[in-house]
C-alpha cells in the first residue's frame, strides 16, 4: 500500500513538474519580464560563489590551455614566422601611408577617431552546447554594463552582452548560432553580417557573388550596428561560390581564441 502511494505520488509530482516546465518554457519564449527578472537575480545571487569556484578551478583551465598551446606550438611558430615576414613587408608601406594620412588630416582639420571607454571584467562561467556559446562575466549594471554592449579582448571582438544583472552579465559569443553582427570587409569596405553556427564556424553572409573577397581579408565591425565600428573580428579563411546562389559562402576565422578568454573589456557606448 505504501509503495503504491509512493508510486502514485511520484506520478503526480512528475505531472505537476511537466506542466510547470511547459508554462515556464512558454513564458521564456515570450521573453516575459518576470522570467528575465528571476534570471538576473539568480545570476547575481550565484556570482560571489561562482567567482570563488572559478578562482579555484582556473589553474586547471590554464593547465589544459597550456597543454593545448604546447601541442600546437610548432604550427603556431611556422604561422607566426610567415605572418612576421608579411608584416615586415607591410610595415614600411604603412609608415608612409600614416605620415601621408596625418598630414592630410591636419590639412582638412579632421580629428582622429576617439577611443571608447571600457570596463574590465573577468570570466566566471561558461555555457557551451550545440545551440549556445556564452560566458558569464563578473561585471554588471552596477559597473555600468548594459545589454547590447560589445565585449572585446586584446585580439578582437568576443561577443555582445545579452543579459545584465546587477553584478554580473551573460555574453553571447560570436560563434553562437544565434549571434548576428553587422560587419565590413576592411579592404573593400563591403557590408555584411557574421553569424555563428552549431559547429562553431563563423560565416560572413550577404556578400554578393559578384564581389571579390579573398582569403586573408580582415573583417571589422561596421559602424551601423550597436557596436562601435572598426573593431577587429577575424580573417576570411574560406570563400565558396555556389552556382545559382546570389551570395558567396564565406568562412571567417576569429582573431580571438574563445577557449582562452579570461579577462575582457566591455565597451561602454
Amino acid at each position, binding site marked *: 500500500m505504501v509503495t503504491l502511494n509512493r508510486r502514485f505520488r511520484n506520478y503526480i509530482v512528475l505531472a505537476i513538474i511537466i506542466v510547470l516546465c511547459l508554462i515556464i*518554457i512558454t513564458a521564456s519564449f515570450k521573453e516575459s519580464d518576470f522570467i528575465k527578472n528571476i534570471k538576473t537575480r*539568480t545570476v547575481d545571487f*550565484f556570482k560571489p560563489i561562482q567567482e570563488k*569556484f572559478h578562482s579555484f*578551478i582556473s589553474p586547471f583551465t590554464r593547465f589544459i590551455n597550456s597543454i593545448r598551446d604546447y601541442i600546437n606550438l610548432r604550427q603556431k611558430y611556422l604561422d607566426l614566422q610567415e605572418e612576421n615576414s608579411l608584416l615586415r613587408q607591410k610595415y614600411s608601406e604603412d609608415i608612409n601611408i600614416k605620415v601621408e594620412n596625418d598630414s592630410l588630416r591636419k590639412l582638412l582639420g579632421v580629428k582622429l577617431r576617439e577611443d571608447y571607454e571600457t570596463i574590465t571584467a573577468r570570466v566566471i*562561467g561558461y555555457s557551451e552546447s550545440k*545551440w549556445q556559446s556564452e560566458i*558569464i562575466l563578473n561585471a554588471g549594471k552596477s559597473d555600468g554594463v548594459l545589454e547590447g554592449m560589445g565585449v572585446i579582448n586584446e585580439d578582437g571582438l568576443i561577443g555582445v552582452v545579452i543579459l545584465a544583472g546587477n553584478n554580473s552579465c551573460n555574453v553571447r559569443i560570436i560563434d553562437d548560432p544565434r549571434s548576428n553582427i553587422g560587419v565590413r570587409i576592411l579592404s573593400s569596405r563591403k557590408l555584411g553580417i557574421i553569424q555563428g553556427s552549431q559547429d562553431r564556424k563563423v560565416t560572413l553572409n550577404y556578400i554578393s557573388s559578384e564581389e571579390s573577397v579573398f582569403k586573408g581579408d580582415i573583417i571589422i565591425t561596421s559602424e551601423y550596428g550597436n557596436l562601435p565600428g572598426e573593431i577587429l573580428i577575424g580573417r576570411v579563411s574560406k570563400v565558396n561560390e555556389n552556382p545559382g546562389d546570389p551570395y558567396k559562402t564565406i568562412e571567417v576565422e576569429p582573431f580571438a581564441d574563445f577557449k582562452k578568454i579570461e579577462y575582457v573589456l566591455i565597451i561602454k557606448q
Partner: protein
Amino acid sequence: MKIFYKFLHFFILIICLLLQIVFFEYIKTFSINFDLVMVVIIAVVIFDGTFWGILFGFAAGMMLDLLIGDIIGVSALIYSLNAFIVSKLITSGFKLKYLTYSFIVFLVTEINIIIVSLIRYLFNFSSNWMQMGLELTTKPVLNIVLMFIIFPVISISSGMARETEFGFKYKNKI
C-alpha cells in the same frame, strides 16, 4: 537524520552544478562532454528514491537554465524526466550493481541527448546530425567515468553500508 542526508545531497548537487558551469562547460569547447548534474541526479534517484530525484532534477535544471540556459525550463523538464526514467529502469528489474549503474547512465545519457534534440527541433532550432552522433558516442562514456566518482560520494553520504549499496534493500524506495 534522513532529511539531513537529503540536504547534504542537495548541497553536493549545488557544488556539482557550479562545477559544471565553471569547468565542465569550459572543457566542452574541446569536445569533452560531461553532464555532471545528470550523473548526480541518477545517483540521487538510486540512493534517495524517485521523489527526491524528480525534485532535485527540477531544482537543478531550473538553476542551470536560469544561470546559463537559453530556453528556461528545458533542463528542469529533462532532468525530472531523467529521474523518472531511472526509477522505471530500476523497477523493471535492473540489479543495483555497478555494471547496471553504468548501463543506466549510458541509457539515460542517450535518452537525454535525444529528448534535448527533439525539444530543440520542436522549438524550431536546426539540428546538426554529425554533432549529435558524436555526442551520442562520447558523452555516455564520459558520464560513466564520472559515475565512478559521484556514486561512491552519494552512497557514502547516504550513510549506506557497502553490502546495502550493492544489494537490493533500496529497491523498495523506488
